[in-house]
């Protein structure tokens, strides 16, 4: 049984409830109303709060990296890890529906990584991340990168306990992504415009893209980066070094 959430006992409890229903004779109980007033994501939010507290007590900065598939998240991460290694402890949680390819790429840099396969799931949730925290070696005061499933829709709604969401948008996508997927850009604190070395070959309106992002999120910070050429990556590393993890509640 899981000591954090007791999730190993769930199926037994569920079957008890199902069995219980059939033990009542029809007509003996009458209908009544029950006030609930609970958030549908309340349970996820409880796990997220536990994760946030656990991370804050250890001074660990957790970042939830979100984007569409193919925006260059893993390349950005491997470049970041390579450059920051030795300066601060780091670890990575990788979320994908299938394969451990991304975790393998991360481990090749020497940084510990844990792969979560969501199977059919389209996002990581706080429960999965809580279990990953138990298994992943991460030193106090370090940075935990959580690379979410490539998806600009569902991960916006699921708090993992991170300090900040960082949305990565590559210039090979459309500049209107921020208003096509407004929830994600609204939830993010920082937008990284990646692959900017390709701008000369594309019709991507950077100013328009930034305007759209600020429409859905007036306070969003924006950085221009090319993970492969290294342009702008210094600004991202500075952001990482300067941003502070939240203090414990």
């Amino acid at each position, binding site marked *: 049984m899981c000591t954090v959430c007791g999730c190993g006992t769930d199926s037994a409890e569920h079957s008890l409830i199902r069995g219980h229903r059939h033990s009542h004779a029809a007509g003996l109980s009458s*209908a009544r109303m029950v006030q609930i007033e609970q958030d549908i994501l309340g349970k996820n939010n409880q796990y997220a709060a536990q994760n946030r507290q656990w991370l804050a007590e250890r001074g660990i900065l957790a970042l939830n990296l979100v984007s569409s598939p193919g925006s260059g998240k893993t390349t950005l991460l491997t470049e970041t890890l390579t450059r920051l290694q030795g300066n601060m402890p780091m670890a990575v949680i990788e979320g994908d529906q299938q394969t451990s390819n991304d975790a393998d790429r991360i481990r090749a840099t020497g940084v510990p990584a844990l792969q979560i396969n969501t199977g059919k799931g389209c996002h990581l949730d706080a429960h999965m991340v809580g279990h990953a925290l138990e298994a992943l070696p991460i030193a106090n005061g370090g940075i935990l990168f959580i690379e979410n499933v490539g998806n600009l829709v*569902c991960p916006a*709604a699921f708090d993992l306990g991170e300090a900040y969401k960082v949305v990565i948008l590559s210039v090979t996508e459309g500049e209107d992504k921020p208003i096509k997927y407004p929830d994600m850009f609204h939830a993010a604190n920082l937008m990284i415009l990646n692959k900017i070395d390709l701008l000369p070959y594309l019709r991507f309106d950077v100013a328009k893209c930034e305007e759209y992002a600020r429409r859905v999120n007036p306070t969003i910070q924006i950085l221009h980066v090319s993970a492969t050429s290294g342009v702008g990556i210094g600004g991202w590393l500075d952001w990482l070094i300067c941003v502070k993890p939240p203090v414990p509640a």
Partner: protein
Amino acid sequence: MHEMSLCESVLQVLENEAKCQHFSQVTAVWLEIGAMSGVEVDAMRFCFDVIVRNTLADGAKLEIIEIPAQAWCLDCAQTVSIQQRYDACPHCGSYQLQVIQGDEMRIKELEVK
């Protein structure tokens, strides 16, 4: 996209409440869903019927109360109605809006036996 996992969360809440509030069958569920919560109401209904099959809420009626989106305009200092996150203030055209209503995803009440 994630209506299936939302419905699984709803079922978990129902099963927990069944223990705490001593009921064995749920016959109707009222959800409050905000216009900007990202929930597709039709998908929610479809997934709900699938998820509750052979559970304490098998065949339960799903009632969805849609909550309209509202924002506070920092420039004209009043509450305004919006349809989308990227809408401008309908009075002054500003994008300096803070969403104050429309993100809800709540289980409001149940009819139980």
